[in-house]
């Protein structure tokens, strides 16, 4: 991970290498997850998850208003934060509805007081594997815009729109997508630690109005000096696509641009963690346990019956582990230059590493 700036912060390089392609090449089980050829497993990200260079200029020394330009491999200005920097280990089902990431992207942002406007162009193709790079020839075939309001300290409200050219077919012959997202994000320092909440709605229409998928998600976390408690609920629709010989993989590219049907996943997740090793500068150790319970229903019952396919339509999962951080904190991914709102003051709790 790199986060370096120069010229008094006017030029900034942010980046993150991601080795999931080595550690979880076959993804990791995740209830309802889908995308990039995986299903019911979250896909590994690309090795170069983010490499963005941004230049920004404030209109005066006393104001946060200014303009910036960022370019590199990273996030299109659309939707909410990367789940990687949110309180849960398990990704939400709506990852591919609510974020557009790992693209060759150029973003212009302008901030005037509490208003941030961003526009970006990028390549529509999503990665096909951890070592995949964006198709250079497709740079600029897709675009997005995001408008963010900062009405109160720590509170941001955004609405965004994107038009993607053939994200699921590298050659550009697949279905195009139109995406909408709106969310409200609150992050506040408390006497003991921090409070965080996100309320999100996202929608993707594919092939004009041929297929439509919607998602609502609400999550909140409260962190004290040691313990943290987080809860997430989401209700997300996803495509049901033909599976490959391996049941956790779908066919890429999907033949005939057709799908089996659509399903809706409703999932509750609760996470509890404890921040240890607080006395060691730069080191964080946070054991956690995360429990999810969910139900899947078919929106096209003739073609996809979850009970027939899975043997049941309710699921639960439990995940336990330890997050270990050493060195710099995770930065907030998905915003660059003046589009990155200043963070509220907070303490040095390792919990921040899970959310920034």
């Amino acid at each position: 991970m790199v986060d370096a700036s120069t010229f008094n912060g006017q030029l900034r390089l942010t980046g993150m290498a991601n080795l999931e392609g080595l550690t979880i090449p076959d993804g990791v089980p995740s209830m309802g997850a889908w995308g990039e050829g995986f299903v019911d497993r979250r896909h590994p990200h690309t090795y170069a998850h983010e490499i963005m260079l941004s230049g920004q200029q404030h209109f005066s020394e006393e104001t946060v208003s200014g303009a910036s330009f960022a370019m590199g491999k990273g996030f299109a200005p659309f939707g909410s934060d990367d789940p990687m920097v949110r309180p849960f280990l398990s990704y939400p089902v709506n990852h591919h509805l609510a974020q557009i990431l790992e693209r060759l992207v150029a973003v212009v942002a302008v901030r005037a007081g509490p208003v941030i406007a961003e526009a970006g162009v990028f390549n529509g193709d999503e990665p096909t594997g951890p070592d995949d790079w964006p198709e250079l020839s497709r740079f600029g075939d897709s675009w997005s815009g995001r408008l963010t309001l900062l009405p109160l300290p720590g509170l941001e409200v955004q609405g965004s729109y994107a038009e993607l050219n053939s994200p699921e077919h590298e050659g550009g012959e697949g279905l195009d997508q139109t995406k909408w997202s709106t969310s409200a994000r609150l992050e506040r320092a408390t006497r003991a630690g921090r409070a965080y909440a996100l309320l999100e709605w996202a929608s993707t229409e594919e092939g004009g109005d041929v297929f439509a998928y919607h998602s609502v998600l609400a999550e909140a976390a409260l962190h004290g000096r040691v313990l943290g408690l987080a809860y997430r609920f989401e209700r997300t629709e996803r495509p049901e696509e033909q599976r490959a010989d391996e049941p956790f993989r779908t066919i890429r590219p999907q033949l005939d641009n057709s799908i089996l049907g659509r399903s809706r996943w409703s999932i509750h997740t609760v996470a509890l963690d404890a921040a240890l090793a607080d006395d060691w500068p730069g080191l964080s150790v946070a054991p956690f346990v995360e429990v999810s319970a969910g139900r899947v229903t078919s929106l096209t019952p003739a073609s996809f019956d979850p009970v027939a396919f899975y043997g049941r339509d309710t699921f639960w999962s439990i995940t336990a582990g330890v997050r270990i951080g050493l060195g710099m904190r995770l930065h907030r991914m998905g915003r660059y230059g003046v589009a990155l709102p200043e963070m509220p003051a907070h303490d040095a709790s390792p919990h921040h590493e899970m959310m920034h």
Partner: protein
Amino acid sequence: MLLAVALAACSDSTEPPPSPTPTAVTAFDGDNQQAQAAVALPQPLRARVTDAEAQPVSGVTVSWSVVSGGGSVSPTSSVTDANGIAATTFTLGGHAGAQTAQAAVTGLTGSPVVFTATLILTSSHDIALVATVPIPPNYGMHDTYVRDGLAFAFAWNTGVRIYDVGNGIAGGTPAAPARVGSLVTNGSVDATDPSVHNGWWFHNPATNETRYLFVGQEGPGSIGTSSRGDIHVVDVSDLAHPVEVAFFHHAPVDGQPAGVHNFWMDEEHAILYAAYYNAGVVALDVSGTLSGDLSSRVIDEIRPGGAGNTYVWGVMLAGDGSLYASDMLSGFWHLKLQSGAFSVLGGGNNVAQQFTSDLWVHGGAGYSGTWETRTLPGNDVKVWNLSSGNPVASAAIAIPDVGTISDLQVSDDGRWMAVTAEYGTGAGLYVYSLANPLVPALLASFPVASPSGGLHTGTIASINGRDYVFAARDPSPESPAMMIFDVTEAVR
């Protein structure tokens, strides 16, 4: 007193020993044999039942059954002899690879005992790949139609490509196809991309015309709900410069768009039968000159499975005028068009474990493919006994390690069948002997293996006395291509 003692002693010595209690069943012999399809293994399968002292137990009934491979056992139960041995004969099915049968005795240790046998290919000759014709990766290539030495490749957004593969007009051969023309057909109101999927070159016996090529457009769809894509009619009088002259667009069904899939033609009566997914089966009058909108040419249409249970993949006309249809959701149907009206004669709702794909009928047998997993993987070729006209499930041939059987076709003489398979290490081309039409026996195979690819379709063609399969290679992991296989030696 002495007598009494003597009687007592005699009585003790003549009492039968206590019956041994069977405790275990094991394989005695017969495991790991080989045979051809529909042929019994050289040696019977034998299981041995013993007691706690490892002594044989007679009189125990052993149940025999086939676990995998589609073969049969006879008898299905047998009783152990004085050596504790029970036996059965295992006749192999047509499945590729290993086949298994088991011996079971309830409550005994080791039950069930599984015996494995291996199918021997009935042809010692390989399938020969004679040409791989690259297709631009504009999504892929879906189907081929071969007739009179011309191959029509239906290549999605690349359109239709016409190759001389033995016709003589451009000197092409199956090993060196020569392109003579191409056309990108129009989109439709529901689907803007050409999405060229399949076709049929109409030879009109009444006029001897070979003017029209019907092209199917496959737009995006959702199984059981919606589909998109029109029939496009192309004038191929000048093969070098084909021209689209007419189209047929189906109106929405229950508020959902409907699109076309595979064709069959009754050329004698100039009727085009089109599988129309959620719209069922549509019969079109294609006699005379075709121009513009053909919506007035509908003879009749039918949704054999009814609303919500119809998504027809393919249709085929049999020699007796019966029309058979394969429906992804509701299976294998027997239909008929009489006096301009469709009727259901039988079949249907007979494949529940997978989605049904393509079909073929020949003589008294029918065949259909399967794809995707409903409760079982879609790797079966279903065999249907059509001796009564209506389909009766006869057998199922599983191709291991594939996710889809997407296409199948029987040779004109009924001797053999080509099957294409996708998605898995077993993906590729398979050819079967139909010496016994209800028990296809694997002759040979050619792997085009890929977790996300393989061969999507295969079309049989006889060119200059040799037998070929023209196959469409999926766009993953390699580029799409038309692969041409010479199967002459394998199917002889």
